[in-house]
Structures are given as structure tokens and as C-alpha cells.
């Protein structure tokens, strides 16, 4: 590559070990990489592949309980792990900028963002005290924050997630570094915001000529920014190639799997096996939601007054879900999707509206609903880290609904736990583990098994894929699909991933600010959207840069 004679940063046969329960385990194994001046290098791989460890090592940072087992990390020819402490501190921030995954966690909540950017300038003494304010405004303008002078006086919580990430980028760029390390910078953002951040990064790279190391599990995002992509799997570098070459001719099997796992909204779905129609009453509406309005604003004193006007986060939404089918709710974060899910599950009391299940109106709160109804409606949450009690074993997590809803004795329950684990493709030995001993995908399978334990008719899936890696998403989705075919389950499927929804759901409702802007058959709706908002959502789906040929259909991932 041009300029690779003078790389900004170099990893030479780097190996890093982490201390595990017993002894050291290798997290990064003999990795060599060059980042040329002005180049953006993508580092792909799933969680646990060692990509974040590599990114941190470039800043001379060893995370807790780890050691460098071999190799060197060179920045401008000098080994960062040999640098004296004051030089290392000068290196970080001054020569290497860092954009973390979660801006909300990395910005100080009690400090105005202008001061947080300015702190960087004064700490590294790159601006005179008088020049700081001007440079802060310039940076905020550069990262596309409107009215910079005013924005500098705001606190992080007053900004949206996308704007917070822009501020984090401004901090990283403050000292005009040679290299910026981006650690999954768009993972927590919804698609439209993600698209804008990617555009910003591409523009900044053009304007400033800064080198980038872009760490992500999302090859589609990488393809839009990076000239070269390196792929890591289980600590090893399995492939490194120019972006175009990587997509055209992935050499390693793992790369092919990652590429195949990219959601492809532009390919029309081929025949997904239709849900079983042999279920009794298939096609009849199982769940009907009428004029649902949800308000989180608190009423005045002691809850006696009226709700403030215009404060509904869901504004009169009606839809129905047919038995044995999947209805998808689509929308950006804050559109009210999850509020609807929680109301249907009986976790919050809607302000207005009726929810009917099997034709009968149901009580608002789960505690008021009869046992059989609670059994028939189950919910799976977005984040399996939070939806499984960390102090319980998988067995006791699964046994609880069995005990509540079933009449099994202890022996039968134990057998049923094993059956449930098998149903979600987990080994029976998992029964004795606790959630922290499972991977994210395995935890979500346990959460699915817990929903199945009740033997439900309707399962509410609230963004259940978004916390999972792409290839894990595929297998969880496949599992849901099989379960629907075998048991005639009905899904209320909440997602922001249009590609998944297009494949998985028969009907779709597009939510914007708490109201449907479009509702109907999935294929028709997505092929010819009648609402500009749907079109906007469709356009924002990350795809592989246009000049790269790609023929892998979405179904390949399943």
C-alpha cells in the first residue's frame, strides 16, 4: 500500500494474555498490523475476538489482569510499552485520539461539554487559554453540532446519543492527533444516527488526513470508511486485505461467514417457509390493540391531577396480530415500540385503550391478569444481561415458570428443564451454570427457554437481537422461526433492523413518535413505502459501499 513504508503505528507479533480462573489464557495471538499515514484500517471480529485488546494496546494500555506475552507495539517507531509514563500520557490524547463505544459512559455527566473538550486542549497545552474557547467552537462545528457556542454550555445528558458521540469524536480530534482509535463508535446508535456518524467520520478523514483504526463487528460500516480491513477470530488475525478485495474474494471461511451475516435489505426475501397453518384458528386475530395511548409523564400532586396535554409517548395506536403469524413494530429509539411491548406484557398501565387477547379484553397490569393469561403472553427482553437474575442458576430460572404455570412434580420439572434447553439448542449441562458463565447468545437462548417454559401462545420479542453479534443473531432468529413452525407461536416482534423484519415478519407497523405512519403487509410496505419516514428508515440501513459487488442473499445467514 502507498505509505506503508512509513506506518504511523505497527503491531509486531503482539500476543496478550489474560488471567482467567486458573492460569493465563491467550487473548491476542501473534498479531501483526501496520497503519499507514492517512489510512483507515478496519478491525473486524465478534466480541471476544481480541479486537478491543488490540485497539487498547496501541495506546500503551494493558487492561486489568493482562500481560504482554510477546511482540511490540510501535507508534512512530517507538515501543509504547517502553515509554516513560509522562511520554505515554502525552501520547494518549495528543498523538492518539480515542472514541469509545458508549459516549454516555465516557463523558463526565456533571461537566459542560465545552469544558470537557477544552480540558483536552489545556492538558496537552496545544492552545493558549484565550484560544481554547475558539478551538472548542471550531471542533464542535467540525463534528456537525449546530450552534456550537450554545452547545458548548450544555451537559452531556442534554444531548442525543448521536450528538454525544459527536462530542466524543471532537474530544478525540481536539489535539489534531496522528491516529484516532474508534471502538465500535456506532454500535449503540440507531440506524439513521449511525449513518450520519459514518458520513461525518468519512468527511473528517478527508479533511484532516488523520489515520484511523476502526474497530467494529459490523463489516458494512467498516466498508464505508476503511481502505483495508483486518479480520480477527479468537485472538488471531485470520485475514487482512483491501476492502474491495475482501468483499470480492474473502479467503478465510470466517470472513465469508461475517460477510454473509450482513443484513441485506436490498435483496428481496425468497420463500421463507410459511408459518404452519395447521394450528387451530390460524389467521384469527390473537392480539388486538385498540387506541392504545401511553404516558410516562407524572400526573400532578399525588397522581390526582390530569396528565399534561401532549405528553403521550404512544398516541392512539391500533393493530392486530393474527395467530401463528409475526407482527413487527419498527421505528427509531424513542418511537414508542418498547412502551407498547410493556403495555401488552402488563408491565405498565396505558393511559387509554384496550388490549384484547383471543377476543377478550385483558386487565392492564400483569398482577391483575388471571394465571392462564399470564401464561399465554410471554416477553423476551432486549438485553439478556439484565433479564436473567445473575444469582440464579439456569435451572432455577427455568424451573420458576414451570412451577408457577405447570403441575409437574420435581422429577418431571427436571426433565422439562432439559427439554427446554434442548429446544433452544443448549446442552443439558448448562442447567447448573449461572448467567455470567454464558455468552450473550447463550443467555438470550436461556431467556427464550424461560418464555417457552410457560408454554405461551404469544411471545413479545423486544429488540431481542440488538445486543447480540450478527452471526449469533442469525442462529437466534432461526430458532424463533423453527419454534413458530413447530408450535404455532405468535410473535410481536420489535426491532429496528429492517432486513431481519423483512425476512421474519408477515406484517409490519412503522412507528414514528408514538404513532403509526404506515402499517400493513411487510413486502408491500417495504417495496413501495407510502410514508417518507419509512423511506428514510430504509435508506439509512447500513449497506456495503456501493462499488462493492455482493450477491449473498440474506437467507444465507440462516
Amino acid at each position, binding site marked *: 500500500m502507498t505509505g506503508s513504508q512509513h506506518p504511523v503505528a505497527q503491531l509486531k507479533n503482539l500476543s496478550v494474555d489474560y*488471567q482467567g480462573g486458573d492460569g493465563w489464557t491467550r487473548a491476542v495471538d501473534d498479531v501483526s498490523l501496520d497503519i499507514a499515514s492517512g489510512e483507515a484500517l478496519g478491525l473486524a471480529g465478534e466480541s471476544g475476538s481480541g479486537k478491543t485488546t488490540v485497539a487498547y494496546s496501541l495506546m500503551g494500555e494493558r487492561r*486489568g*489482569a493482562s*500481560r504482554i506475552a510477546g511482540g511490540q507495539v510501535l507508534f512512530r517507531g517507538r515501543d509504547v510499552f517502553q515509554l516513560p509514563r509522562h511520554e505515554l500520557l502525552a501520547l494518549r490524547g495528543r498523538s492518539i485520539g480515542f472514541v469509545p463505544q458508549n459516549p454516555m459512559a465516557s463523558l463526565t455527566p456533571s461537566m459542560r461539554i465545552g469544558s470537557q473538550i477544552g480540558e483536552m486542549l489545556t492538558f496537552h497545552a496545544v492552545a493558549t487559554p484565550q484560544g481554547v474557547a475558539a478551538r472548542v467552537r471550531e471542533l464542535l462545528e467540525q463534528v456537525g453540532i449546530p450552534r456550537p457556542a450554545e452547545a458548548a454550555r450544555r451537559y452531556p445528558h442534554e444531548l442525543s446519543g448521536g450528538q454525544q458521540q459527536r462530542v466524543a469524536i471532537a474530544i478525540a480530534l481536539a489535539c489534531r492527533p496522528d491516529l484516532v482509535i474508534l471502538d465500535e463508535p456506532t454500535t449503540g446508535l440507531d440506524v439513521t444516527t449511525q449513518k450520519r456518524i459514518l458520513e461525518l467520520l468519512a468527511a473528517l478523514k478527508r479533511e484532516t488526513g488523520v489515520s484511523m483504526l476502526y474497530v467494529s463487528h459490523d463489516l458494512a460500516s467498516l466498508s464505508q470508511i476503511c481502505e483495508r480491513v483486518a479480520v480477527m477470530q479468537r485472538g488471531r488475525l485470520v485475514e487482512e486485505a483491501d476492502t474491495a478485495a475482501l468483499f470480492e474474494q474473502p479467503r478465510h471461511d470466517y470472513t465469508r461467514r461475517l460477510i454473509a451475516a450482513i443484513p441485506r435489505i436490498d435483496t428481496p426475501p425468497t420463500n421463507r417457509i410459511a408459518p404452519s397453518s395447521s394450528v387451530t384458528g390460524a389467521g384469527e386475530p390473537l392480539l388486538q390493540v385498540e387506541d392504545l395511548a401511553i404516558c410516562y409523564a407524572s400526573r400532578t400532586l*399525588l*397522581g390526582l391531577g390530569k396528565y399534561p396535554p401532549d405528553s403521550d409517548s404512544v398516541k392512539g395506536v391500533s393493530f392486530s396480530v393474527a395467530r401463528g403469524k409475526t407482527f413487527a413494530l419498527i421505528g427509531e429509539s424513542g418511537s414508542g415500540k418498547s412502551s407498547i411491548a*410493556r403495555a401488552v*406484557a*402488563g*408491565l405498565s398501565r396505558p393511559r387509554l385503550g384496550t388490549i384484547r387477547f383471543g377476543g377478550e379484553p385483558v386487565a392492564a397490569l*400483569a*398482577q391483575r*391478569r388471571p*394465571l392462564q393469561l*399470564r401464561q399465554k*403472553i*410471554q*416477553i423476551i*427482553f*432486549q*438485553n439478556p444481561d*439484565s*433479564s*436473567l*437474575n*445473575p*444469582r*440464579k442458576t439456569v435451572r432455577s430460572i427455568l424451573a*420458576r*415458570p414451570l412451577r*408457577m404455570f405447570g403441575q409437574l412434580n420435581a422429577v418431571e420439572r427436571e426433565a422439562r428443564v432439559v427439554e427446554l434447553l434442548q429446544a433452544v439448542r443448549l446442552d443439558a449441562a448448562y442447567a447448573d451454570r449461572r448467567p455470567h458463565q454464558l455468552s450473550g447468545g447463550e443467555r438470550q437462548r436461556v431467556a427464550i427457554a*424461560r418464555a417457552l417454559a*410457560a408454554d405461551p401462545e404469544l411471545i413479545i420479542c423486544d429488540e431481542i437481537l440488538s445486543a447480540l453479534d450478527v452471526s449469533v443473531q442469525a442462529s437466534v432468529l432461526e430458532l424463533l422461526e423453527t419454534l413458530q413452525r413447530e408450535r404455532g407461536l405468535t410473535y410481536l416482534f420489535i426491532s429496528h433492523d429492517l432486513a431481519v423484519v423483512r425476512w421474519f415478519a408477515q406484517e409490519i407497523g412503522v412507528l414514528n413518535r408514538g404513532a403509526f405512519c404506515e402499517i400493513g403487509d411487510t413486502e408491500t410496505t417495504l417495496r413501495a413505502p407510502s410514508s417518507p419516514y419509512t423511506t428514510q428508515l430504509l435508506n439509512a440501513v447500513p449497506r456495503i459501499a456501493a462499488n462493492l459487488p455482493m450477491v449473498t442473499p440474506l437467507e444465507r445467514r440462516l
Partner: protein
Amino acid sequence: MAVSETSIGTWRAGLGRATRGLSASGRIGAAIILVYVAVALTGSLWAPYGAAAILTGSPFEGGSLKHLFGTDNLGRDVFSRVVLGTRSVLTMTFAATFLALAVGGLIGIVLGYLRNWVDELGMRIIDILISIPTLVLALLIISAIGNSLWLVVLTVAFLFAPRVARVARAATLNVATNDYVAAALARGESTLSICLREILPNIMGVMLVEFAIRCAFAIIFIGSLGFLGFGAPPPTPEWGLMINEARANATNSLWPVLAPAAVMALLVIAINLFADGLSRMIDHPGYRTTGAK
């Protein structure tokens, strides 16, 4: 023989698991507490003299092999009295703290989980209870109702419970927003069942630390009550009471004042060390391994 060796082995492994991650000072604290517990359990078997035995030597003797901590104005052996007093001090302390934790913890968890007007009302009542000076309230209760060991225990528990409730509520607020609580709610679990099954196991660490800290407070508090004559009646070998009785004769001999005071102080320090180590271990699991190169 072989059996006992294996059982010692597994016992050691268990101890190793329990103390792994506990800081050195935390281990020292734990060791001292264990010695106190051992003394409390076995003291009556080996204490050289009875607690009420007078004229075991001449009054106001200094420390010697015969009387390790000397003798008091009635010639009672201070060492024996300190040893024999351990049991009642530890029993009362643990009983009062345990009661406070059980009642206050449950109230705190329920309030923190509900977070509605019940919580609002409950917290204001707790604020009021906390704002009353503890010693004054304790003296009021005891002088109004009577003077017995169990009343002291109940009083201390009553005074500590609102403070524990606050800690438990704060810990619950972090846990109650988790989706496993929502999952239990959607399943239709009762409030009590959610609090005990889903929330309590997750704040157990905080409650353990709270227990240790409250124990230290309780020892001083019970000692203070004894000192003021509102605890056990004489001639019970209660440390606070012993200090009070010996106070008048401090010019004759300091041993009867200093010995119970030092023993009480050492126990409180040990509990604080242990509580500190415990909270660090719970806040930073693997704290010690991280420091290792």
C-alpha cells in the same frame, strides 16, 4: 485418620474460597473476630475464676500471671470477667444487628421496589426516626419500659432498622430496574416474592457489609448503654458496665477500666477492618488478582 485429613482439606479449600480476594487487613479482622467468637463459646470452660467470685486476690492488684488483667475493687479477676462478658456482648450485638437487618432490610427492599406513595410515606417516617438522637431515644425507651437484656436488643434493633432500610432501599433502586424483575412481574409474582427471590440475592453483598458495620456500631452502643447503667444489671460482666463500675476507683487501679475498654476497642477495630475488606471485595471482585503482575 484419612477421613479427617480430607475433611480438613476440604475445610481449608472452603476457607480459601471464602477469603480469596479479601485484603490482608480484612483477613486480620476476620481472624480477630473468630478469636472473640471462640472465646465467647468456650470461655466459661476455661476462665480462671467465676464472673461474680469476689476476693480472688486482694483488691486493685496489677496484672500478674495469677490475674492477667489484675483485680477490681472487690478483688474480682478482671480477665475472667472480660472473658465471660464476651458471650453476652456478642450475643446481644449479633441478635440486635440481625434483627435490624431483617426488619430494616425487608422494609428498604419493598420501598425501593415499590417506589410509589408508600415509598414516599415510608421514607419520610424513616427520616423522622433517623433524625432523633439514638442515645436519647434509647434511654427514653428503656427508662419507660424497663431494664432487661432483651429490651436492649430490641431497642438497638429498632434504632438501627431505619438506617439499614435506607441502605437496602438505595441498593434496591439499582437492582429493581433490571429486566429480570420485569420478567417476574410479567409472570405475576407477588411483591414479596419479587423482593425476596429476585432482589435480595442481588443486594446480599451490600447487606453483608452493612451487617458488619452495624455490628461495630452496636457493640459501642450497647457498651454505652451499659456504661450509663441502662444495660445489664450488676454484677453481670458486661464491658460497658465494668468500665462504669471501675471508673470511680480509677485512681487506685487503671486495669479494671482499661482492660474491658481495650477489648471492646479491639473488637470494633477488627470488625471495621473486616467490613472494609468485605466491601472492597464485593465492589471489586478480583481486586487482588488485578493488582498481581
